[in-house]
């Protein structure tokens, strides 16, 4: 457990017990003496705020997603780290990513740590049921629905799966994959005619999804159990299934809609807390974590990919290799559209997610009329945007002031 003199590294990522253990035992090997502490996003924010308000600092380094670090800036919990950024110049972190770490200020607020995205995992047993003419690497949502239907007819069970349980990341699917693929937008076109088509298409997909989907948190479990043959999830949440039986699976890009094949990159960053008890140690730890060797170890241990210029070695474990290929396929698809994680929502991030999940519940689970539901939920969305004054982010076009909902 945490010893007083150790540097404290608080993270919202790599939380599950075995992942945290890998961080402690493998990834942090050779780094300054560190206690690795994890917390869920909302208590994380509360804790950071409390330390600032009490002016009593225990945490030196924080690791969190871009969207989780951003709210820490206005509360003055982050220390500018241009000096650390300068000493990292040779690591080859893409300038675009480094710029994200400035959080819209002139100074470096965090250093990119690792990245991931959301993919589809396909059990090879599902391949025979693919619709005629469909390419598993370039599916559309209609084809996915058709595929699910055939699997249901042939196996007697609904074999598509989504992590729509209490801890699942289903909201990210709706925001980052489904909406932009149909509307080229996440917020502005929320209640557009394209969105209406989208929901109707997705109803057909859901009709072929396993009814337990509303209980799934991590898709690796139903995949390993064979309950689900085709699943969408964050790469870190399917890794166990792939490593356990790499020969059974393919990892492919999520389906495409009329406006392209949208995907959502996930960036986690490392920041130093203002008033950190051990700023020097924290900087050293950043240096350690962004070393190409450490980044490769991170990739193979926990399934998050490097932000630095590090070629994945050929002897990568087959499961991680599958993931790497899946990520590459997703990012390089010729119809790829990038949808960023929401920015600027502060503590309204939860309610923003709720808009999508509620809309899904009403339209798909409770079969409420699509048009009326979209109109009602668009009002909620508008009030969130008005309250946070968050400007649009990709793929929505940049806006002056709060991102509008048409």
């Amino acid at each position, binding site marked *: 457990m945490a010893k007083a003199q150790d540097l404290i590294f608080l993270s919202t990522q790599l939380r599950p017990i075995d992942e945290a253990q890998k961080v402690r035992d493998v990834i942090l090997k050779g780094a300054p003496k560190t206690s690795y502490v994890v917390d869920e996003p909302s208590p994380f924010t509360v804790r950071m705020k409390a330390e600032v308000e009490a002016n009593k600092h225990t945490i030196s380094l924080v690791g969190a997603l871009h969207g989780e670090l951003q709210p820490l800036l206005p509360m003055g919990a982050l220390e500018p780290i241009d000096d650390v950024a300068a000493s990292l110049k040779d690591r080859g972190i893409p300038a675009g990513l480094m710029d994200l770490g400035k959080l819209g200020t002139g100074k470096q607020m965090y250093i990119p740590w690792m990245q991931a995205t959301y993919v589809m995992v396909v059990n090879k047993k599902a391949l025979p049921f693919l619709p005629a003419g469909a390419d598993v690497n370039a599916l559309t949502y209609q084809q996915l629905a058709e595929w699910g239907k055939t699997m249901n007819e042939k196996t007697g069970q609904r074999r598509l799966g989504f992590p729509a349980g209490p801890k699942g990341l289903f909201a990210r699917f709706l925001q980052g994959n489904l909406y932009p693929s149909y509307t080229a937008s996440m917020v502005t076109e929320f209640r557009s005619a394209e969105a209406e088509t989208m929901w109707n298409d997705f109803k057909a997909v859901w009709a072929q999804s396993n009814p337990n989907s509303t209980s799934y948190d991590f898709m690796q*479990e139903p995949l390993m*159990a064979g309950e689900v043959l085709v699943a969408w999830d964050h790469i870190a949440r399917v890794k166990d299934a792939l490593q356990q039986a790499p020969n059974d699976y393919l990892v492919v890009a999520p389906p495409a809609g009329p406006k392209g094949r949208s995907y959502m990159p996930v960036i986690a960053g490392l920041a130093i807390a203002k008033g950190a008890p051990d700023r020097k140690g924290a900087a050293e730890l950043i240096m350690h974590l962004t070393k190409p060797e450490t980044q490769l170890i991170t990739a193979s241990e926990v399934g998050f990919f490097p932000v630095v210029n590090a070629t994945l070695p050929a002897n990568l474990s087959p499961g991680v290799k599958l993931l790497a290929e899946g990520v590459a396929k997703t990012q390089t698809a010729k119809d790829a559209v990038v949808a960023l994680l929401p920015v600027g929502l502060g503590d309204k991030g939860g309610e923003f997610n709720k808009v999508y999940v509620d809309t899904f519940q009403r339209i798909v689970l409770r079969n409420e009329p699509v048009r009326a539901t979209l109109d009602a939920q668009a009002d909620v969305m508008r009030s969130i945007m008005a309250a946070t004054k968050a400007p649009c982010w990709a793929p929505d076009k940049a806006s002056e002031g709060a991102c509008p909902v048409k």
Partner: protein
Amino acid sequence: MTQRATGSFKGWLYGSGVMLLCVWVLLPIGLIGLGAFGGRPAVYQWPKTLMPASLSLDQLAVFF
């Protein structure tokens, strides 16, 4: 004589009621207790066996 006969029938009824309620309380705990040694595969093992197919103490490692 008749009273004694109905008495023993009643006693039997009571006894089995008590036993049934004991099973109702203990069975779930027993099952989860055995399941705890099955490790992760036991959760999705189908069909379940009383003793998990692969015994392991991995889950207990969480406590240390």
